[in-house]
């Protein structure tokens, strides 16, 4: 650092202390000021802005705005969570206990539910056979509406096969067809059942009917045949005789069919 720079630094330090010749001279001189009308305009603008703030945020709003917002959010959140929880609980309850919290107006006869107790797998298999396509028993055990009776009018027979709910044992996981039936029971039962029934080919129907017949369940066989005829009303009788067991009384079937049709209509 040169002597000149050292001198400059000393002078700067002296100046920064505030007692230098330059500072005294500068501050002694008359000082320019903004015009009074400019002062008035700026102060007026500041006051107006401050008044607007007071108007916009009154003390009550300012104090309670955040707490009220939080309270509203909490209340809405709780109600939504409670609603979801309540719905889930009902679903779990209906699956695990096999009883539904509230009985639908079109529930089938109580005696059907009293018959519950057969292992789920057996119930499902037999109900499938008895009901032709396993519609009635499954839906009864889950408290499905009586709309299912449109397909299975003889509910007391199918009701005897009703077992505990499928969710009780690992084995009781519904088969794909039954699962479709369960889903269908939640919506428009009749229309859905008709659609599913119509998906079975005649040979599948005959296999089911024959199985029921040879197992000794004549009622189930007749009911399945009736359902088959509901789906395939134009199926030739001669071919029907060839496909069904020889000792199966087709006239009796026809009578039952007529009776069923009358009851349904």
């Amino acid at each position, binding site marked *: 650092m040169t002597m000149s720079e050292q001198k400059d630094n000393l002078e700067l330090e002296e100046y920064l202390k505030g007692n230098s010749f330059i500072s005294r001279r500068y501050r002694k001189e008359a000082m*320019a000021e903004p015009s009074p009308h*400019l002062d008035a305009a700026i102060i007026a603008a500041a*006051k107006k802005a*401050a008044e607007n703030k007071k108007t916009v945020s009154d003390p009550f709003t300012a104090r309670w705005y955040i707490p009220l917002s939080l309270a509203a959010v909490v209340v809405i959140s709780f109600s939504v969570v409670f609603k979801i929880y309540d719905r889930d609980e009902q679903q779990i309850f209906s699956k695990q206990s096999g009883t539904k919290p509230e009985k639908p107006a079109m529930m089938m006869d109580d005696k059907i539910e009293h018959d519950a107790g057969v292992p789920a797998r057996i119930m499902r298999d037999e109900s499938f056979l008895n009901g032709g396509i396993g519609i009635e028993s499954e839906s009864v055990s889950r408290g499905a509406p009586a709309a299912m009776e449109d397909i299975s009018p003889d509910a007391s027979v199918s009701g005897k096969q009703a077992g505990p709910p499928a969710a009780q044992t690992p084995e009781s996981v519904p088969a794909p067809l039954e699962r479709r039936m369960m889903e269908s029971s939640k919506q428009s039962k009749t229309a859905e059942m008709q659609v599913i029934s119509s998906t079975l080919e005649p040979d599948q129907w005959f296999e089911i009917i024959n199985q029921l017949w040879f197992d000794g369940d004549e009622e189930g066989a007749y009911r399945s045949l009736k359902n088959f005829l509901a789906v395939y009303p134009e199926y030739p009788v001669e071919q029907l005789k060839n496909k069904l067991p020889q000792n199966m009384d087709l006239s009796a079937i026809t009578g039952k069919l007529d009776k069923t049709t009358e009851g349904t209509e």
Partner: protein
Amino acid sequence: MADLTDEELMLAYRDGDAHAFEQLYLKHKGGLYRYFLRKCGNASIAEELFQDVWMKLINAREHYEVKAKFSTWLYQMAHNHFIDHYRKHSISASMNRNFQDDELENIPAGNNQQPEQQAEFQQQMETMLQLISELPDEQREAFLLREEAGMSLAEIAEVTGVNIETAKSRLRYAVNRLRKGMNDNE
């Protein structure tokens, strides 16, 4: 209210106290106005810039938080606004300087002074302002921030966006030039 700091006054104004603003304004209006006047040398432009900065402050009041000294915040706004103004009008601040005429109009005659003293007073002021106007922009700004806002080197550095050594160097050159100029004229 009189005991409140600038920052406390600004917070009070933020919360709706217009009287707090008035106090702040009265305290800083002279320094800020002269800062602009001596940077641009034109009274009407200085008033325009001066008003703009205060309006910016008024509009920014709702978001004000104490992050620095109030004067540092105020002059930082002034510094940025001055640069923006001259960028916007594509002119150099030093080219626009028409220094003495406007400034000298605002110099009142000293009270109770004889005509000879008044003439001397006018002469000294004119010399001082002339010397200030001849300083490079950066040095002049450092000097004005020191004199008008009472800023330390660190604060000058913060407002002008340079390091402390640079601010110190600028101020040292400014003081040196002014001293030499005043000595030469006496």
